[in-house]
Each structure stands twice: as structure tokens, then as C-alpha cells.
């Protein structure tokens, strides 16, 4: 597969691993946070952590949109589907995430709600066209990568005069989340997570460009390297971060040059800005309330905003007790430090969002990493 296979080449991986080993100072520790779940997935699937020296550690970040969506917003979606008689359309990732009392969209569907999985916002529009007598809501989640397709759907719905289509908007923004992770005080009883540099988002940056990370890199003196999602991309980006750390630099560098430019996709940015504006604040699972970290639909497009169209009731939403998803998203705990991991919480029966999404750290540990420690111990013995 062009542009994929070349970036998984084993020989090159070993060469990069040797370069990292040579350039990483044995007297230092390098804590590199990969922001995106896509990176976490690549690191586990290809065993990247085992290819680099022990003093180079990957810290898993919150870049999994399904994972950071707070339980209240999911409960709202369940209410839309069960209480307002709409056809709720959503990306497949959301279906099995447990809400309050473990009520997921798939359970709501079993109770009779009309919930339909879509691959694209184009499919949601088609459902609206095919069901003119029903209200169709698209449950929109995702970072800047996934936002432009939602904006296009709203513009298209207006152009076509669709009056039965609206969006429940939960799109979130990456740069404020990065700043928050570096800046936020640790939770009571928690040791703050140490981060020496960031592997920056791949496809988010294809849309917004790499310039938006410059304030965070400068103000918090943390290097950022925009990294592709293939294993070689991750390794080369780690090497670039190690070099910056060694040289005391904290710049934004771009490893993913085949896709990302400084300014990103201007057309996509313009379409999003036409339809959406920044919210004053938004709640993230794990990070809490983060100022100016999400988007809402502009008043001019109010008729396409499910939050204005339907009266959602305030609710007492609750996470599953003992689920460590929030601490895992902050990077302060590893999935194996959660009591539920691998016992009551598995991909077949997930208790938290981090086990549902393939980008979640728990799912990555479960799929690729849960035997890792054991194998190392056996070799040592």
C-alpha cells in the first residue's frame, strides 16, 4: 500500500532505533507524550517502546475523542435518542461507550431507540433525505480532523433546504488541551506527570497546520514534533525530540511533511469557521473543564444545532466507579494500574471509554501489551 508500507519497514526501524540509542543521553530521562491515540496504537502494535532505550518513555496522552467525551454529553445523546424520538446517527466508535449506569447507545438501541451507525456525515444526510417525516440528529465527536466533515454536512443541509437535520456538536480542540496538560495543577494525591516533549497530532495538524502549537512550545518550553502515525514516523519524531531536548531547544518541528504544512488546510478552516465558533469552556473526561477548548454551532446556523432544537434535561451523570480512565487520560496512570483492567473491563465488556475505542490506551494495552511485562520477566529469569 503506497505511503503506508514504506513507513513500516523493519530494517529502517532498526536503524532508527540504533540512532535513538546513540543520541539518547544515558544520564537523562526522556518522557515523551504522544498526544494522539493513533500514536499510542502504533507504539503498541509495532512494539516501538521495546525498540528504544529504557530511559526513553512514551507517556500516553488524551488524544482519543471517544475517551475524552464526558459522560454527561453521552447521556444527553442517549436522551436525544430515547426521549425525543429522533433518528440518532453516530460514528461506530461511540456505540459501546458506557454512560451513567452503564447505559450505552447500543443498550438504548436495544430498548427501541432508532440509532444508526454511519461511516460519514454524507450517510447521515442521506438518512435525513430518506426520512423527511423524522428528525435526524448527527452525534458529532472528534478533534479538528473530524470537524470539517461536520461543517460540510451543515452547509450542505442548508443548501438543500433540509429542515429535519441537526448536529449535536461535541468537537474539541487540540492546542488548548496540550496547554492544559502542561499547565494544570496535579489532582490532589497525584504526582504531576513529567513531560519533556510532545509528539504532536498527525491528522489534526493536516487541517490546522503546525503553527497553532507555537505558543505552547514557547510558553511552556516544551518541544513539539508533529509526527505521522506509522511506526517509522513515531521513531523518527522521537529522535527529533531527543535532539531538541539534548540541545535545550523547544521548537515546533514537523516530521509529517508529506501531509502537514505550517498553515494546514485553509479551505477546511474557512468552512469550519463559517459554521462554528469557540465555546467559552468545555468539559473533558480526565482534564476537567478546559477554557476555549471546543466548538459550538454559530447562532446563524441555530436550526442545525440539536442543542437549540431539543430541550435537554440537566442530569446527574456518573462515571463507572473505580474506572481509572480519567487518570489514564492525564498520563498519570497506566491501564495496568486500574483495578478493573482485564478483570471486569475488557473490550467485550468495557467499563470505560479507554477500553472501547481502538485509540484508547486500555484497548492498546489489552490488544498488544498485556503480556509484554510477563515476556520481559520470563526473559530476565
Amino acid at each position, binding site marked *: 500500500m503506497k505511503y503506508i508500507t514504506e513507513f513500516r519497514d523493519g530494517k529502517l526501524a532498526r536503524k532508527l532505533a540504533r540512532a535513538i540509542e546513540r543520541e539518547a543521553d544515558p544520564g537523562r530521562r526522556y518522557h515523551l507524550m504522544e498526544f494522539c491515540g493513533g500514536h499510542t496504537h502504533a507504539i503498541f502494535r509495532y512494539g516501538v517502546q521495546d525498540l528504544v532505550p529504557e530511559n526513553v518513555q512514551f507517556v500516553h496522552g488524551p488524544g482519543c475523542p471517544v475517551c475524552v467525551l464526558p459522560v454527561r454529553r453521552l447521556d444527553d445523546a442517549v436522551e436525544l435518542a430515547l426521549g425525543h424520538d429522533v433518528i440518532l446517527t453516530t460514528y461506530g466508535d461511540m456505540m459501546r461507550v458506557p454512560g451513567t449506569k452503564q447505559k450505552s447507545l447500543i443498550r438504548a438501541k436495544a430498548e427501541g431507540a432508532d440509532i444508526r451507525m454511519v461511516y460519514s456525515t454524507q450517510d447521515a444526510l442521506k438518512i435525513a433525505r430518506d426520512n423527511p417525516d423524522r428528525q435526524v440528529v448527527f452525534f458529532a465527536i472528534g478533534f479538528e480532523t*473530524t470537524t470539517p466533515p461536520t461543517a460540510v454536512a451543515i452547509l450542505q443541509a442548508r443548501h438543500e433546504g433540509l429542515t429535519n437535520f441537526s448536529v449535536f456538536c461535541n468537537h474539541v480542540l487540540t492546542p488548548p488541551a496540550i496547554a492544559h496538560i502542561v499547565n494544570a495543577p496535579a489532582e490532589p494525591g497525584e504526582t504531576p506527570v513529567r513531560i519533556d516533549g510532545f509528539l504532536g497530532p498527525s491528522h*489534526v495538524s493536516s487541517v490546522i497546520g503546525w503553527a497553532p502549537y507555537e505558543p505552547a512550545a514557547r510558553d511552556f518550553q516544551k518541544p513539539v514534533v508533529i509526527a505521522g502515525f506509522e511506526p517509522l514516523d513515531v521513531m523518527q519524531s522521537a529522535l527529533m525530540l531527543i535532539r531538541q531536548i539534548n540541545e535545550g531547544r523547544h521548537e515546533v518541528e514537523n516530521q509529517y511533511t*508529506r501531509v502537514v504544512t505550517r498553515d494546514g488546510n*485553509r479551505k477546511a478552516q474557512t*468552512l469550519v469557521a463559517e459554521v462554528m465558533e469557540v465555546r467559552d469552556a468545555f468539559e473533558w473526561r480526565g482534564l476537567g473543564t478546559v477554557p476555549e477548548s471546543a466548538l459550538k454551532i454559530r447562532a446563524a446556523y441555530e436550526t442545525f444545532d440539536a442543542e437549540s432544537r431539543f430541550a435537554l434535561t440537566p442530569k446527574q451523570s456518573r462515571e463507572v466507579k473505580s474506572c481509572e480512565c480519567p487518570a489514564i487520560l492525564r498520563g498519570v496512570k497506566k491501564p495496568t494500574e486500574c483495578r478493573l483492567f482485564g478483570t471486569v473491563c475488557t473490550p467485550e465488556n468495557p467499563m470505560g471509554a479507554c477500553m472501547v475505542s481502538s485509540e484508547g490506551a486500555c484497548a492498546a494495552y489489552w490488544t498488544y501489551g498485556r503480556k509484554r511485562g510477563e515476556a520481559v520477566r520470563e526473559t530476565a529469569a
Partner: protein
Amino acid sequence: MCLAIPARVISLESGDMAIVALEGIKKPVSTALLEEVTVGDYVLVHVGYALHKLSEEEAERTLQLMAEAGVLAEELEEMAGTSLEGAER
């Protein structure tokens, strides 16, 4: 969620749509987010939308840089002549 797959544009359709091919699979995608697109372009496909064009030149350059990072390191190793790997050989 943010995953996107590189695919080749094989035809342009009406209404800002195109057909892309990847490993023998053909799929309609929206090109509404691209300024311009032509048949033969490689685009990054995400949730049914072409998000960005891929630069062939930059892809080649990245691979070359990766190779150089390794090669240069190995040359230094030979110059130093004292590494563990050298000792094993």
C-alpha cells in the same frame, strides 16, 4: 477516530465527489475540503472525506532522511569502533 488512509483518486464525480482506490477497493469520497484535485492524486481519506493531498516528494524525502539518520549513525559507529555491536562481530 483521527485515522486516515492514503488512497489514489481514480475519477472525479459530480457534486464534489470522487472515486478513490486503495488495494483494489473503490470508494466514493467527498472532495469538498480540497481546493483542487486531479485524477492520480494521492489523498488522505478520513470519514468519507478527502482531507489533504499527499506530497510524493515529501514522502520520498522523509524516507531518505530516515535512512540517513541510520546510515550516518552506523558510520559514526564504525569510526568509533568500540560499540557493543562491533565487539560482537
